[in-house]
């Protein structure tokens, strides 16, 4: 999808998809922060980041390289980069790595846009958390619910996509959606137990 296709009725898909991405990321990320999520949003609304990313693309569409992914992946990556760079650059954030300096020149990075998201997200999650303990805690709460276990292991260990999980484990869309919602509740609960910032708060 390029600018011409977007002009011809492509904006709806892009707007909905990017708003869902930004909101979903901010919500999950905030589980691992104490209090209000001010360092992530810097006083703006979450959708402001969506339109800043779109604006940067409209201003310089030549920066998008279709060989590294589609326009949605490119914009998702840019939203993530802005949000996490904000967070990393704030003095009150003592818990994450300085991603801004680590990835300062990544315009030269030739990996695809979706792969580029992981290092940013990795650097933004606190080092002080025992992620192995979180895994055990989640598995314990899943407590042999087959659908939940399949979704969790599919996402966690295999990095499978929604459609792949549904097909592989022969479940329907409704089961998947309900399972993801339950899993979110469990992960949120795990974040309360294992997040050092929330324990100190």
């Amino acid at each position: 999808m390029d600018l011409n296709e977007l002009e011809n009725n492509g904006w709806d898909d892009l707007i909905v998809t990017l708003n869902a991405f930004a909101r979903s990321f901010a919500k999950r990320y905030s589980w691992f922060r104490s209090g209000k999520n001010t360092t992530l949003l810097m006083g703006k609304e979450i959708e402001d980041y969506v339109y800043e990313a779109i604006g940067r693309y409209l201003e310089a569409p030549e920066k998008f390289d279709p060989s590294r992914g589609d326009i949605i992946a490119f914009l998702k990556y840019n939203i993530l980069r802005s949000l996490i760079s904000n967070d990393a650059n704030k003095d009150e954030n003592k818990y994450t790595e300085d991603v801004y300096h680590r990835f300062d020149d990544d315009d030269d990075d030739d990996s695809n846009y979706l792969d580029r998201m992981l290092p940013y997200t990795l650097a933004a999650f606190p080092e002080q958390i025992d992620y192995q303990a979180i895994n055990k805690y989640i598995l314990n709460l899943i407590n042999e619910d087959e659908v939940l276990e399949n979704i969790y292991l599919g996402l966690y260990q295999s990095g499978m996509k929604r459609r792949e999980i549904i097909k592989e484990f022969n479940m329907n869309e409704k089961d998947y959606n309900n399972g993801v919602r339950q899993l979110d509740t469990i992960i949120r609960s795990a974040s309360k137990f294992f997040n050092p910032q929330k324990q100190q708060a």
Partner: protein
Amino acid sequence: MNKNINKHKSEFVNLILNAVNNDSSDKEAAMAYLSSEGLDVNRIVNEGKRRIKKMQMEINARKTEKEMEEANIYKQQATKWVDDLLNNFDFSLTSIVQTEELAVSFRNVEELNKDDIRNILIKHYTLKFMKEKDGSREH
């Protein structure tokens, strides 16, 4: 030990990222997610289109302004160039018309006064300098 810690963190963060990407994997998934968060998807789309349209108008206005500023710089450069040419003792309009391939017939050349010649040459060199600049940008 560190390698194991990194592996567990990496797997967990991948889980978060996969969940986020799944919420926004396509329009249907994204609409379902936004609705489940209690948001009005139609309002989001309409508001988004309005913001994008406003940005496009602002970007176009900035581009036009920049082009006009650039054209003005080239016109100043061309004016100086033409004035230097006209003040040159060896200046020959016929020769300039031939070397610069100006679209002026010889019958018209004889009817032009000094201001007409100056304006034609300024216009020609302004466009020439702009084309040269664009050519050097492309390379």
